[in-house]
Structures are given as structure tokens and as C-alpha cells.
């Protein structure tokens, strides 16, 4: 059943060795990507570019502006002189936030004890917008409270109900801790899928597949023989990205490293299996490329890497279940951040194992048929 596996393994190893530049790219590019994206993807919003249109100019107006800047969420970069200008600055993308303080701000505060400040928010970036809304509200609330206390002094001021959120597992709310484990899963998915997606279709294009198929090599032997060396490469890659995660992004691994590596191998086999399946179907390398993208894009968007799967429509959640990266991201975050073990994660691991087995079996079965 596995006839020819060692012959194919021998051949693939020589071919990989003979092309050191490609090998270098395979090993080095993911590390660069991780470094690049790991720094770039930061959901902790700070210093949002802000314009202020102050029609009041009295002390109270300066106080509220200071209150905004003191949060460190807003950085005032422009002073507008008209409503039109404030609006234009946002449309042009110069600023994301426009704060307008009306001319009667101080008057209203003194006279009625209530005044309004207009905060215009560029909604085209949802993560910035939602934080801006939350922070502006809290600025308003704390300013109101302060004024209230000034007018009605309380000996020991305290809130009646105080909510104290406590962040487990990622106390500093560092986005690197959250993003990097997922990013590693995605990067590994991309590199491994491409590695094998081309492996068989390349032989088809060069005509060597034909020669191979008149020999008694068995499909399973051919598949596994091709897979094994790439699995080793991808495993080395995994160790590399974990080192970068631990020592460059400073994300400690809370759980068992061996379990993490074992599940990583399972995931790599599954992703390589997807690549092989693509390779048995595609007639040429361009097709293989298209198909690989077809797999990779959902892995990025639907796996819970970027958007939480809980907030997706039910259908998309189900699609997510068909994506191996969904399970591996769960496992990565579980082990790295929460220190979860086999007991907590076995369902994800079992799902990965099942998918890997299925992909490899189907590609071996499909293989003979593609000749006709």
C-alpha cells in the first residue's frame, strides 16, 4: 500500500537540497512575516488623530479638551475654524475624530448646569470608532461626576456600584499575546498549503508524473513520501516561529510545550494534506495557486483569527468548523495564553486528527483517478 514511499522520500529530499534558495525562502519568509505582522497588528488604539473646533475658548472648554487628551486615546493635531473645515478634515482622512465645543458651552454649564459637546467619529474603521465612542462617553461621565461633586460635596465620595473588571491570562491586554499565536497558525497554514499544492502538479507539468505512474509506486506511498520532507521543514519552521513569539514578542507559553508541538505536527499534516488534495486536482500550477488561495482566505477570515467566531452568522460559524486553522488557533491560544491541557482541548485535537486523516486519504484515493 505504501510502496515507493522511501524512494519518493529520497528523491524529494535531494530535490529540496538542490534548490537551497527556495529552501531559504521557505524557512525565512514566515519568520519575516511574523515579525512584520506581529508588530503591525495592534488592536490597542492610542493617539487617534483628532481635530478640535472650539467656539467657546473659556476655561471650561479648555478643561474638557484636556480631559479628552489626558485619556491618551486622542491626540489633537488640528484646530478647525469652521464646521465645514472640521467635516472636511474627517472626509480627507486627516483626522478620525472631530470635537466641536459650541460657543455657549460655558454659559450653559453655568446657567443650566448642562452642556453638550459634539464628537464626530469616522466610522470607516470599526475598531477605532467603537473605542472612540466608549472613551468619549466615559470622558463625559467623569466630567459630569466631577462637577456634581463640586456642587454637592460628599465627605468620602464613592460610587454606589463599582464594576471591577479583572483580565485573566493577558493582564496587560497586550494585543501581541492575542494576535501572535493566531498569526502563527495562519502563517503555518499558508506556507504548508503552498508547499504541497505545487508538489504533484509540478510533476504533472514537467511530464515526470507520467513516468512515475507507469511504475509500481502506490498512491499512498507517493503521497506520504512527498509529504514527509515538507513536514520536517514545516516543523522546523514551527519551532522558529515559536522562538520568535517567546523571545521577540515576549509571549510566554503557559501550557505544555510538548503538547503544543504535537498538535502543531497534527495541524501541519492536515494543512499539507489540503495542499496535496489541491495538487491532485489542479491541472497546472496556476490552478493550484488559485485553489490554495481559495482555502487560505477563509482560514484567515473565518477561523477566529481576526474576528471572533461567536459574532459570526450561524452559517459562517459552521463553515469555520470545516477549517483546520479554527481548531489549531483554539489550541494555540489555549496552551499559550491560558495554560490549557489535553483535557480542555481534546475535542479540538480530535477534530484536527480526523481532518488530517480525511484529507490525506481522499487525496490518495483521488490520485489514480486524475489520470483518466
Amino acid at each position, binding site marked *: 500500500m505504501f510502496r515507493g514511499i522511501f*524512494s519518493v522520500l529520497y528523491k524529494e529530499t535531494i*530535490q529540496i537540497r538542490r534548490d537551497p534558495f527556495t529552501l531559504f525562502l521557505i524557512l525565512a519568509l514566515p519568520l519575516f512575516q511574523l515579525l512584520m505582522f506581529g508588530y503591525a497588528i495592534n488592536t490597542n488604539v492610542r493617539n487617534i488623530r483628532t481635530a478640535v473646533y472650539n467656539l467657546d475658548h473659556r476655561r471650561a472648554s479648555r478643561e474638557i479638551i484636556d480631559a479628552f487628551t489626558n485619556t491618551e486615546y486622542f491626540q489633537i493635531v488640528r484646530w478647525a475654524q469652521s464646521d465645514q473645515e472640521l467635516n472636511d478634515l474627517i472626509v480627507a482622512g486627516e483626522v478620525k475624530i472631530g470635537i466641536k465645543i459650541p460657543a455657549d458651552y460655558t454659559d450653559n454649564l453655568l446657567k443650566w448646569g448642562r452642556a453638550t459637546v459634539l464628537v464626530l467619529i469616522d466610522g470607516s474603521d470599526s475598531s477605532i470608532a467603537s473605542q472612540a465612542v466608549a472613551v468619549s462617553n466615559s470622558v463625559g461621565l467623569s466630567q459630569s461626576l466631577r462637577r456634581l461633586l463640586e456642587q454637592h460635596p460628599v465627605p468620602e465620595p464613592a460610587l454606589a456600584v463599582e464594576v471591577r473588571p479583572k483580565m485573566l491570562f493577558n493582564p496587560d491586554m497586550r494585543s501581541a499575546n492575542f494576535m501572535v499565536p493566531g498569526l502563527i497558525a495562519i502563517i503555518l497554514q499558508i506556507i504548508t498549503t503552498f508547499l504541497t499544492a505545487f508538489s504533484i502538479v509540478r510533476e504533472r507539468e514537467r*511530464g515526470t508524473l507520467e513516468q512515475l*505512474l507507469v511504475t509500481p509506486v502506490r498512491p499512498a506511498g507517493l503521497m506520504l513520501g512527498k509529504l514527509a520532507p515538507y513536514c520536517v521543514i514545516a516543523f522546523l519552521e514551527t519551532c522558529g516561529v515559536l522562538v520568535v513569539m517567546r523571545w521577540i514578542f515576549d509571549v510566554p507559553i503557559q501550557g505544555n510545550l510538548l503538547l503544543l508541538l504535537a498538535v502543531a505536527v497534527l495541524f501541519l499534516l492536515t494543512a499539507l494534506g489540503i495542499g496535496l488534495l489541491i495538487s491532485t486536482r489542479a491541472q497546472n500550477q496556476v490552478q493550484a495557486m488559485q485553489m490554495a488561495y481559495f482555502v487560505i482566505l477563509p482560514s484567515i477570515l473565518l477561523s477566529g483569527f481576526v474576528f471572533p467566531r461567536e459574532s459570526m452568522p450561524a452559517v459562517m460559524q459552521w463553515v469555520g468548523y470545516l477549517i483546520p486553522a479554527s481548531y489549531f488557533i483554539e489550541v494555540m491560544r489555549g496552551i499559550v495564553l491560558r495554560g490549557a491541557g489535553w483535557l480542555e482541548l481534546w475535542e479540538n485535537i480530535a477534530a484536527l486528527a480526523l481532518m488530517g486523516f480525511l484529507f490525506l486519504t481522499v487525496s490518495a484515493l483521488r490520485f489514480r483517478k486524475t489520470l483518466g
Partner: protein
Amino acid sequence: MTAILLQELTKRFGTLTAVNSVSLEVNEGEIYGFLGPNGSGKSTVIKLLCGLLEPTSGTAWIAGKNVRQDPEAIREQIGYMSQRFSLYEDLTVEENLHFFGSIYGLSGRLLQNRSREVMQLLDLSGRGRQLAGTLSGGLKQRLALAGAILHQPRIMFLDEPTAGIDPVARRELWDLFFHFSSQGITLFVTTHYMDEAERCTSVGYIYLSQLIATGEPEGLKKLPEVNPSGTRRLEINCHPITQALRILRTAPYVRDATIFGQAIHLLADASASESDIERDLQIQGVTSILVRPIEPSLEDVFVLLTRRQEAARV
């Protein structure tokens, strides 16, 4: 003993019939030349026989095994050399041989010895460490042949093995084919070259997916369709040859006239004598005329059979 047997072998790709009910038989140790124009189905037949394609209907036996039921057992017995170089260009000569040898279960000393033997036989010694991609066309063909013969197959399928290589390399390859044949190996060879076809033990001619003739070259030349009663074949050397051809094509006793190399081949009524022809040409100013009776060549046979087939279609 029969090495290859085809029974109404048919392959369709959608609505296109690539191989239409081909039946033929090749005996052990024969060199079977498989001829036909491009696109007539030669390569498809070879791919069917090697198990690269599955027949739509009909069947074939290779070394006594059915291609439909026992393709894996057949793979052990056959060697295949495809039209285009299909070994690994980024492996050396030796690595290619070791790879293919090991798939067939050769290993260790046996594999070493066999590789060395084959490299010697095919004059590849000293090139063991050269990358296959850097070999010349002729050497590539020999390496491909080495890969196909390494595991000592009983039957070899060679798809246009001599296409695009120089005449010397071509002759050397054919010497090897005869060497293999003398060892009892059956060779199934496709070619476009008539001189190669003449050297085969038997030949088959496929035209528009149908096998229209098969047999020994000598037998085919004696077919009644090729030698219609009341006709004779003549070869004419003369000058200028194109003018002579024009004259002859209008002569009442000429049934067919074609230029072959430096001469005209003529299928004429048996009543036409050499002197009649000579006289007719001389009158029109053709000089240095030499007319002699000849046997039909294989090319004559195939040209004639093709025309008959086309006439039958219309």
C-alpha cells in the same frame, strides 16, 4: 508467445474517439512499429497499454495480464519511455536511476550493479554525477531508455523515442533496440520514420483513430490492395524531375505518381512498358531518363491505404 494483445480497444474523451476499436497482436521478442500521422491516436494507445488511461471499451492483455483487472501486475513487467523527456532534470543521472530502480524494489548492491550495467550499455558511464537537465538531447533519450530498462522489463513501450535527435544517435538507439529484442524483450515503438518502420518485425498503421493495417512489412507490401491487379510499380530517375511528374500525371496509363527523394514512384498499368514511358518523357524534353521496376515501399503501402480509407469515408 503473445506479449501484447489488443481486442477492440477503444478510448473516448467525451465525444472524441481517440482510439477506435483497435485489435492487434505482438509476439514476444518482436519489435512492433506503430505508425500514423500526428493526432491519430498512437500515444493514446501506448498510454492505455501502460495503464495511464483506462479504456472506454474493449481490452488488452500485456504479458498475459488484463489491463483492466491487473494494472499493478503489468507495471512490474513494462518499461515506458514517453515522447518528452520525463525523468527528473534536477537529479543526476545516477540519482534518477537509483530512484526508479528502488521503486521497482532494487536495492543495495543489486541496484548499484544494475545501474552500472545499464549506464555502460547505454554509454552513460562517466556521466553519473551530471544533472540530467544538462544532458544533450540524444543523451537524455538514452537516460530515459536506461530508466525504462533498469528493472529488466519484459515489454517496453517507446513513444517516439527518436523524435528530434540526430541521425547518428538515432542509429545507435536502434542498435540498442535490436540488442533488447535479441534478449527476448518485446518492444512497442511509435515512429514517423519509414526507415525505422522497415526495420521492425511487424508494423501497424493507425489513421484517424483506426488501425488500417498490421503485419510484417513484407506481408503488407504484398497486399492485393497495394498491388492492384494489372498494375506495376516503377521508379524513374530523370531531369528535370518536376516537369516529368507533371507530364506523367496526365499520361493515360499512370494511376499514381509521387516524388520520393530524387526519383518518381509510379503506379502504372501493367501494359505500360519502360520504353513507352521513356519515349513520352523524351518528347517533352526530359533528359537522363532511367526507368526500372520496383517493389512497393512501406510508405507506398501507407499512402495507398490512407487514400483508400479516405475514399471509403466519402
